[in-house]
């Protein structure tokens, strides 16, 4: 560095990107000045309540709503018969194979019900309580049909059918074969020639996204225009799909997502209730509201995960992996919702993880059952894949008597090998697995904990210690449109932003990416403050209303910053380019002689004289003096569509205490180091990691949606579905390495799902590491004390929980002994 450089460096404005800015959106959230959908009250607004099916599979043999109609303050009662010609079907945007069977998904049942909780009738009344009361007066009878719950049974020849219109319960058979795709060698040959093979069957239990704000929809009617306020992640997609489904012309339908209380994929949906609210409002010409109860939410909002995974790995005796084979049964539930079939298919590309498998084959059957449909839940396909690969790498290490980290290190992609094209055909752009691993080992205090483990092992301590590893990567930043197209996804993956320069110099940023807790307003303000050189406080971020943000693809798949944030950068670049022409004109200089720094255009070599971009905003508003041949505006919009996914990675380590006498497990310490590329706001990043970890750990330890043998959801309240509280979770020790993504100018990789994807196998591996010497090689999630105790004392994986005697999971106990007696 020369001396003359120094003043420039000193004058350079402090960067907002990377700054730990406190969130703008907090001001209204901590004071109760919020705009949740359920807060909305419109003049003359009516309330909807649903009669829902209490049986899993039946024909509706009798339905009489006349008594309900006579109840006080009831305005109307509707059944499937009333809407059968106009309700269409809930859209499925991801036909993963050309011959995928989609029996259609009515918003309200017409003749048959296919899962408990399906809507059967709608009461519309002047108050919420009047609507709920009148539901009781509906007279309905069902004629039961055989209930299909167990996927392994459902795919057998001659199995009972969920849908009489189909020839089997298999919706689709999706195959990715690296040999055929040209991205790898022949998998069968790899297994034929293997020195060692390990095969496992893992169960990904059914989970419930359980966002804290229940779903809610309000429809306003203005002539033939409709406004739908909804607690949704996807106002833009909902507008298109809502219009196509109801026949309301798209330009007559406005969708608004006001403050939205979490989603986690659970509000990435075109919900039957949203469609029905539109249909009822149109039929009555009156505003309507529907807000679900928590029990209604757990029973009818889509669930997540629910796969049976058969996974085989082939290797040489020295630990080099030579092949990977995966077969999945993925529970679709009773219907295909927005991306139900696509979730496991998205996982197809992630099973090889960070390892250099030469051969890979993936097959998945999407299977119908009489349960609520599954769909996106934080990670959507990638947690399942990560779990399977990180679990079986541990199993292979045991088989080979190798250290599990050594086995991983031997097979992972080296830092010098990026960009690296995987056997699944993905091009991983950047990262350093060794660096993240070293940092995580230090953060955990790995060596001391290993020493303590040894000591507890030797002393026969009833509380054993284990350390679990998950070295993961994921594909996110959902885009690129062409790739999504090649996967038969129904939409693109671009994102839109526009920037409006107001006369007073304030800046409005309109984003097509719709937040529900992620902090877009703060992060986008930081980006724009840097790009335009304006104060952070002068930026307002607008979102979630299709009348304001007309174009967008919303928020899921850790895409907001990567795709939406980049669109903001691109729009800002256009604003600067437009302002440059005005500045050149007003400063009487050539555009080429202007430099733009800290929000000011100045003539190179002429310090002092300059024109701020906020002043230019006023000048072009007045428009008294601007160059010929250009428009009097420096506003701009941009769409961005990256050419590749982004690939966050990291190393997660969990130290776990297992009480071998009670089966109680307790996380002793959790440490993770993630590479999510460039960090715009470290506070928000840390928060996203924490939240993801909590959900991933909850899958391992606490949560499971259980259906009994009749198809009743037995975990239909927060009493039974165990969302962890503060007392159930540890402090998390998190860190980051930074290798910028090469697919976007921000260098961001996405952080929303990483913690949730990575943590589950680390936790299960830790528990197994604690008790493997006692003969335990698998424990079924969630690791309840009962299951852990059974696995230790009775062998097997601990078996089914609570639903003992049901066939919810096939009664598919992989246990050999003891459990049948225990159940009797």
């Amino acid at each position: 560095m020369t001396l003359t450089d120094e003043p420039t460096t000193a004058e350079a404005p402090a960067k907002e990107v990377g700054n730990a800015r406190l969130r703008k959106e907090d001001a209204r959230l901590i004071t109760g000045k919020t705009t949740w959908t359920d807060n909305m009250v419109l003049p003359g607004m009516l309330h909807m309540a649903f009669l829902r099916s209490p049986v899993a599979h039946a024909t509706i043999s009798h339905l009489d709503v006349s008594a309900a109609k006579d109840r006080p303050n009831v305005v109307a009662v509707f059944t499937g018969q009333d809407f059968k010609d106009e309700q269409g079907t809930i859209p499925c945007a991801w036909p993963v194979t050309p011959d995928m069977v989609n029996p259609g998904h009515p918003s309200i049942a017409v003749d048959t019900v296919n899962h408990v909780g399906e809507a059967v009738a709608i009461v519309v009344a002047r108050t919420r309580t009047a609507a709920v009361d009148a539901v009781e007066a509906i007279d309905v009878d069902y004629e039961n049909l055989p209930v299909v719950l167990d996927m392994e049974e459902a795919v057998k020849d001659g199995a009972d059918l969920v849908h009489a219109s189909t020839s089997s319960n298999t919706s689709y058979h999706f195959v990715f074969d690296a040999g055929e795709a040209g991205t790898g060698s022949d998998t069968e040959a790899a297994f034929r020639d293997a020195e060692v093979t390990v095969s496992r069957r893992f169960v990904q239990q059914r989970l419930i996204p359980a966002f804290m704000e229940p779903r809610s929809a309000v429809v306003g009617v203005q002539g033939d225009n409709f406004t739908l306020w909804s607690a949704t992640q996807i106002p833009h997609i909902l507008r298109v799909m809502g219009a196509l489904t109801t026949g309301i012309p798209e330009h007559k339908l406005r969708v608004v997502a006001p403050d939205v209380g979490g989603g986690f994929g659970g509000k990435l949906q075109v919900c039957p209730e949203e469609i029905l609210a539109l249909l009822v409002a149109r039929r009555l010409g009156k505003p309507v509201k529907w807000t679900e109860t928590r029990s209604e939410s757990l029973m009818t909002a889509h669930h997540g995960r629910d796969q049976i995974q058969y996974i085989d790995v082939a290797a040489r005796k020295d630990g080099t992996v030579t092949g990977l084979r995966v077969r999945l049964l993925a529970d679709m539930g009773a219907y295909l919702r927005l991306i139900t079939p696509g979730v496991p298919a998205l996982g197809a590309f992630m099973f090889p993880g960070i390892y250099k498998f030469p051969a890979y084959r993936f097959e998945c059957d999407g299977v119908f059952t009489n349960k609520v449909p599954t769909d996106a839940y934080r990670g959507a396909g990638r947690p399942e894949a990560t779990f399977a690969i990180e679990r079986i790498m541990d199993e292979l290490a045991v088989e080979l008597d190798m250290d599990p980290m050594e086995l991983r290190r031997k097979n992972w992609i080296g830092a010098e090998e990026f960009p690296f094209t995987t056997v699944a055909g993905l091009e991983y752009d950047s990262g350093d697995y060794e660096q993240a691993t070293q940092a995580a080992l230090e953060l955990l205090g790995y060596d001391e904990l290993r020493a303590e483990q040894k000591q507890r092992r030797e002393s026969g301590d009833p509380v054993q210690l284990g350390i679990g590893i998950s070295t993961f990567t994921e594909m996110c930043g959902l885009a690129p449109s062409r790739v999504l197209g090649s996967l038969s996804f129904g939409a693109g993956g671009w994102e839109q932003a526009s920037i409006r320069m107001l006369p007073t110099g304030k800046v409005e940023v309109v984003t097509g990416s719709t937040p529900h807790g992620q902090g877009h307003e703060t992060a986008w303000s930081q980006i724009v403050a840097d790009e335009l050189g304006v104060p952070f406080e002068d930026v307002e971020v607008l979102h979630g209303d299709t009348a304001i943000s007309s174009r967008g693809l919303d928020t899921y798949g850790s895409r907001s910053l990567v795709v939406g944030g980049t669109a903001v950068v691109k729009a800002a670049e256009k604003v600067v380019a437009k302002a440059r022409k005005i500045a050149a004109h007003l400063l009487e200089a050539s555009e080429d002689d202007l430099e733009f720094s800290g929000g000011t255009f100045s003539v190179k070599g002429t310090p002092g004289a300059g024109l701020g971009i906020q002043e230019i905003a006023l000048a072009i508003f007045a428009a008294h003096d601007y160059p010929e041949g250009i428009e009097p505006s420096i506003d701009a919009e941009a769409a961005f569509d990256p050419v590749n996914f982004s690939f966050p990675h990291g190393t997660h380590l969990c130290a776990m205490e297992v009480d071998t006498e009670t089966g109680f497990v307790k996380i002793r310490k959790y440490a993770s180091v993630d590479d999510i590329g460039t960090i715009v706001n470290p506070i928000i990043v840390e928060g996203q990691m924490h939240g993801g970890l909590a959900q991933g750990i909850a899958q391992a330890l606490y949560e499971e949606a259980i259906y009994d043998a009749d198809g009743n959801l037995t975990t239909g309240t927060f009493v039974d579905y165990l969302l962890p509280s503060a007392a159930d979770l540890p402090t998390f020790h998190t860190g980051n390495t930074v290798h910028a993504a090469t697919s976007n100018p921000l260098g961001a990789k996405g952080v929303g799902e990483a913690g949730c994807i990575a943590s589950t196998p680390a936790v299960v591996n830790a528990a197994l590491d604690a008790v493997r010497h006692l003969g335990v090689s698998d424990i079924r999630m969630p690791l309840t004390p009962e299951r852990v105790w059974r696995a230790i004392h009775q062998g097997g994986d601990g078996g089914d929980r609570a639903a003992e005697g049901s066939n919810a999971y096939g009664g598919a106990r992989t246990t050999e002994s003891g459990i049948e007696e225990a159940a009797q």
Partner: protein
Amino acid sequence: MTQINVRVDGASYSDDVEPRTLLVHYLREQLGKVGTVVGCDTSNCGACTVHLDGESVKSCTVLAVQADGSEVTTIEGIAEGGELHPMQKAFHEKHGLQCGYCTPGMIMASIDLLKNNPDPSESEIREGIEGNLCRCTGYVNIVRAVQQAAGEMSSTAGAQA
């Protein structure tokens, strides 16, 4: 219908309510106090937490008629003279919220926790807010926020003493 007289966030209200009306629904639907929210129907989530005569209650487990003659404080009534309550400030500064849906209840429960135990340990905080569920934050930053507020409130109390 039963007549009740309640003070909510410093203002007096006199209303007819159905005997079965829950306090949270009275607050939201009759008074427009929509800062307090509903997250469940089994008294598990704590999203609806308010103070009833200074004690933290889940307002979905209290009937409006039970609040007759009482003083209710909601999230909308704890900032004084335009100054955020130290707990509100701490949630902001420690990033103790993401979507913010659990936040009103979480803040009200945490204020009550510190009233009973001004200097709680981490595990006392975790146990103390066990009745309030958050799906977004993983609780680490909520714990930090309560710790910060505890520090601030005890030093203010000390200064006043």
